[in-house]
């Protein structure tokens, strides 16, 4: 029943030790059970078992996973064709068929694959080293070029037994000052200088006695001493030799990249497949710590969806060839620990994310997806209300579903929601007469057929519709709250939480209608209405005290909040009309401005479509989360996470 989360049962499987791998594998592949740690089991039988231990295979799996990741990281990344292309035309590869095989066989295969592919790591490292060497050569060439005007052998720079030679870069306005200071060190020096870009390069040679004084001077932060390292030879020869080396390195790098690319084409897929298999094998080893053990048996405890319990018994029995005891029983009464799984038919499944985004229901709480999914689509269509905009959404959703929707279930679900929202927008667009706003009457002189309610022509009718919809949804929320409280046996909560509103609403309606002069209630009706209002308020105030006042304003605010259905519908139609008016005004300036008008029209509608679609979705969501959920829903349930092998690019042979 989709009104509540799926019914859950506790399951205890005791399997003979020799059948454990087969049993775990079957449970993992079918995903029929959430395995919980037996050490935290509420059952007294937990004392009979000692806790499972992490196996050596777990460590082996981890090591192989790290090695495979290292090889995959070394291979060049797959070429991606941009976001739009990957969404609409993804490259879909069928999953790789793999056989069930025991750990040692799998590890042997992994070992072979890693060994035959691991040279990718060395090649990637070599590319990095070549990059570093090229950067260094580039830096050296920059330095050497400074010496080109002087044309000296760079090997002379540095210290020799009798001389100390240094190259210093000096800004032009400090040159004279620098030369004066040099003369101050010693008169016996040799100086040469040349322009180096904006500055001067000054080559100074002094006897070894004056080396320290020279170093003191050039260590001043206002000058920059040029370090030539071990470079030796004349600048021209050096640059030529370095350029030759750089060319050779680039050729080598190109060859390595080709080799890596070929390796990637041959090995990326097998490596990715092996990574998935190792991950799955690791999960199976990891779960053993949660199991309980005796000398001959192993206990697996956890949660199963009640409807799956027969399948669980059958799968475990087949895998263990009958060497298993399977006990499925009702959980303890406290609903807090019970995990929550949705119980949705296929058409409702894509909407589950809306509930999850707010908070998953608690186990004993109503699952609101059935109410908010279709309502969100209905509100979205009502607020966007444009047949052409809706058709664009439907086309985009269809393309998304045929594209990335085939590869990803999340995108597939989202595209189905979008398709439904687009269809609702088309229907409401036709009913509101919205076709890119007033396109039909303004440009084609056609009165939109089938238009029954328009936010621009009849805003009051539309407002009444919006408020009626609001009342219906708010009261549905109250009814659901009553249902929930009856299930929990909280009659007092119904008395103070929901009944006051069922009394207050009709009473207030009569009093307000009389107050505004829309009707003249007869005396007995007035007495009933006044009595109802007093009783309703009293019930509220008895429980909440003075804060009951804010409950009244809060309810009123929640109701009026549905006026946004009109406001957003009006904004879509009104802005679309404004764009159409502007396009006409631009076209009227000059015959050639028709092109400008077309640009204004297209750009304007694209902007309006984007902004209003966003607004319609988020405001629909707000009405569900704030106004509707405020009546009955809190959420806070824990998700049911079955022990399931998530196979993305592989499929077990026989399970296709």
């Amino acid at each position, binding site marked *: 029943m989709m009104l509540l989360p799926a019914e859950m049962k506790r399951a205890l499987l005791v399997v003979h030790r020799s059948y454990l791998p087969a049993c775990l594998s079957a449970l993992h592949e079918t995903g029929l059970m959430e395995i919980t740690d037996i050490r935290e089991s509420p059952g007294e039988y937990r004392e009979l078992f000692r806790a499972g231990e992490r196996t050596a295979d777990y460590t082996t799996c981890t090591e192989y996973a790290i090695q495979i990741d290292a090889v995959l990281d070394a291979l060049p990344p797959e070429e991606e064709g941009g976001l739009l292309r990957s969404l609409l035309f993804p490259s879909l590869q069928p999953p790789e068929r793999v056989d069930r095989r025991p750990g040692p066989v799998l590890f042997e295969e992994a070992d072979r694959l890693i060994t035959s592919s691991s040279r990718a790591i060395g090649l990637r490292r070599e590319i990095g080293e070549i990059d570093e060497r090229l950067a260094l050569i580039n830096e050296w060439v920059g330095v050497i070029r400074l010496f080109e005007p002087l044309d000296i052998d760079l090997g002379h720079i540095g210290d020799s037994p009798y001389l100390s030679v240094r190259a210093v870069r000096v800004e032009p306005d400090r040159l004279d000052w620098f030369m004066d200071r040099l003369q101050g060190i010693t008169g016996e020096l040799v100086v040469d200088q040349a322009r180096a870009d904006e500055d001067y390069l000054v080559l100074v040679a002094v006897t070894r006695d004056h080396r320290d004084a020279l170093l003191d001077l050039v260590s001043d932060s206002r000058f920059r001493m040029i370090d030539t390292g071990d470079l030796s030879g004349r600048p021209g020869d050096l640059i030529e030799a370095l350029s030759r080396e750089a060319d050779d390195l680039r050729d080598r790098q190109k060859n390595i990249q080709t080799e890596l690319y070929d390796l990637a084409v041959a090995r990326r897929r097998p490596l990715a497949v092996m990574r998935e298999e190792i991950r799955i094998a690791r999960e199976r080893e990891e779960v053993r710590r949660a199991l309980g053990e005796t000398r001959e048996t192993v206990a697996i405890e956890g949660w199963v969806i009640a409807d799956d319990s027969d399948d669980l018994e059958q799968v475990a029995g087949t895998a263990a060839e009958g060497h298993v005891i399977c006990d499925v029983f009702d959980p303890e009464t406290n609903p807090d620990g019970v995990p929550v799984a949705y119980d949705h038919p296929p058409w409702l499944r894509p909407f589950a994310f809306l509930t999850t*985004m*707010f*908070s998953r229901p608690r186990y004993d709480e109503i699952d609101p997806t059935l109410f908010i999914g279709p309502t969100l689509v209905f509100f979205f269509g009502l607020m966007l209300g444009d047949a052409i905009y809706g058709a664009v959404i439907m086309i985009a959703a269809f393309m998304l579903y045929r594209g990335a929707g085939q590869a990803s279930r999340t995108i597939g679900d989202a595209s189905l929601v979008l398709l439904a929202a687009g269809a609702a927008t088309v229907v409401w667009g036709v009913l509101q007469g919205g076709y890119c706003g007033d396109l039909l009457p303004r440009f084609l002189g056609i009165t939109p057929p089938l238009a029954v309610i328009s936010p*621009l*022509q009849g*805003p*009051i009718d539309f*407002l009444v519709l919006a408020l009626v919809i609001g009342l219906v949804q708010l009261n549905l929320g109250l009814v659901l709250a009553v249902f929930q409280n009856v299930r929990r046996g909280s009659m007092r909560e119904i008395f103070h939480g929901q009944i006051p509103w069922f009394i207050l609403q009709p009473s207030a309606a009569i009093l307000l209608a009389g107050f*505004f*002069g*829309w009707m003249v209630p007869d005396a007995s009706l007035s007495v009933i209405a006044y009595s109802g209002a007093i009783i309703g308020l009293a019930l509220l105030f008895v429980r909440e005290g003075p*804060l009951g006042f*804010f409950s009244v*304003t*809060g309810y*009123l*605010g929640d109701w*009026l*909040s549905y*006026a*946004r259905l*009109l*406001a*957003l519908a*009006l*904004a879509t139609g*009104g*802005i679309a*009309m*404004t764009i159409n*008016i502007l396009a006409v005004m631009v076209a009227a300036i000059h015959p050639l401005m028709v092109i400008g008008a077309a640009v204004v029209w297209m750009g304007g509608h694209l902007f309006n479509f984007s*902004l209003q679609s*966003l*607004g319609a979705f*988020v*405001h629909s*969501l*707000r009405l569900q*989360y*704030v106004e509707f*959920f*405020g009546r009955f829903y*809190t*959420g*806070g349930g824990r998700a049911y996470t079955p022990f399931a092998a998530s196979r993305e690019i592989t499929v077990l042979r026989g399970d296709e």
Partner: protein
Amino acid sequence: MPVGMGNVLVLVGAGLAVGLSAIGAGIGVGIAGAAAAGVTAVREERFGMALVFQALPQTQGIYGLLTAILLLIATGMLGGAGIEVPLAIGFAAVGCGLAVGMAGLSAIGQGIASAAGISAAEVDTSTIGRSMVFSVLPETQAIYGLLVAILIMAFTGMFTGVFDATTAVGLAAVGCGLAVGVAGLSGIGQGIAASGGIGATAEKGEMFGRGLVFSVLPETQAIYGLLVAILIMAFTGMFTGVFDATTAVGLAAVGCGLAVGVAGLSGIGQGIAASGGIGATAEKGEMFGRGLVFSVLPETQAIYGLLVAILIMAFAGMFTGAFDLTVAMGVSAIGAGIAVGVAGLSGIGQGITAGAGIMATSRRSEMMGRALIFAVMSETFAIFGLLVAILIMFGIGLIGG
């Protein structure tokens, strides 16, 4: 060129449209620009991205300029011979200017959000798309303002050059402008919330949906403003062209606009609270529902404003078409609108308390009840405003004959 009072008011309307929206756009672009300068100093390659974000709050300025030019063209003061403009059309032009100009101040909020978007993209460019969605949210207020301005122009014959309005309709247009324009300042609150959403989403991508829900909360004030503007148009015959409302009704419409428009500033408080809600939810997912409960508290002020606006409409005979209001009553309705509207600013204080309440509840869940009591204290002043508004309506015989 004839320079009557109508022409003068058209010029005032054009000035309000372009001037006020330029203030908003200028401040918003400035805030975003400061963030852009800081990010570009560190990451030069982010220049183009920062420029796109900085351009977002400029659109409000463009809407203002567009409205000013349309007003001047419609009245023949630009590219025409110049014609004597009736006083009613002058008032309508002021309404257009207020709608677009005041709503253009939402650019400040957009600038705050854009600045957050720029900062988030400094570290990770994959945040740009999501940040852009958050940053365009405060544009909605400006669009509502532009929509109302265009509708006023269309319904008073400004596009066709056949002016068709009474003074009552002109004053009603001023009411519409105040309603949608001043309430458009809720865009600042929306920008504050959106910037929180951008920060949370940059840290945790899955916060996108929940962040959006929080960020649209302060749009409610703008929606109420738009709603009242449309109701005023409908009840004063702008949709049908049957202008039988009296000047007193036009004045009452100004009161309605002030009530819902100024009370709409509570949206700033709501934005502050929603920003706190986003932060708490990013830390603890289960705070989403509680964060929403706190964040909607400062909406009450807007509801009081809407309530008084609807009461004024009801008692001014707008629902029934029996316009027997005196001018004194119309002026008093303006007083009632000011009372509830300005008192609605208490929503900013309530938002600050609610934001802190969210944090306290996030730390200790049992704090929720007490934190709610702290948060509703500020609402006392809004209730005073509501009370005085109702007393004014009673005092002048608007309620109870």
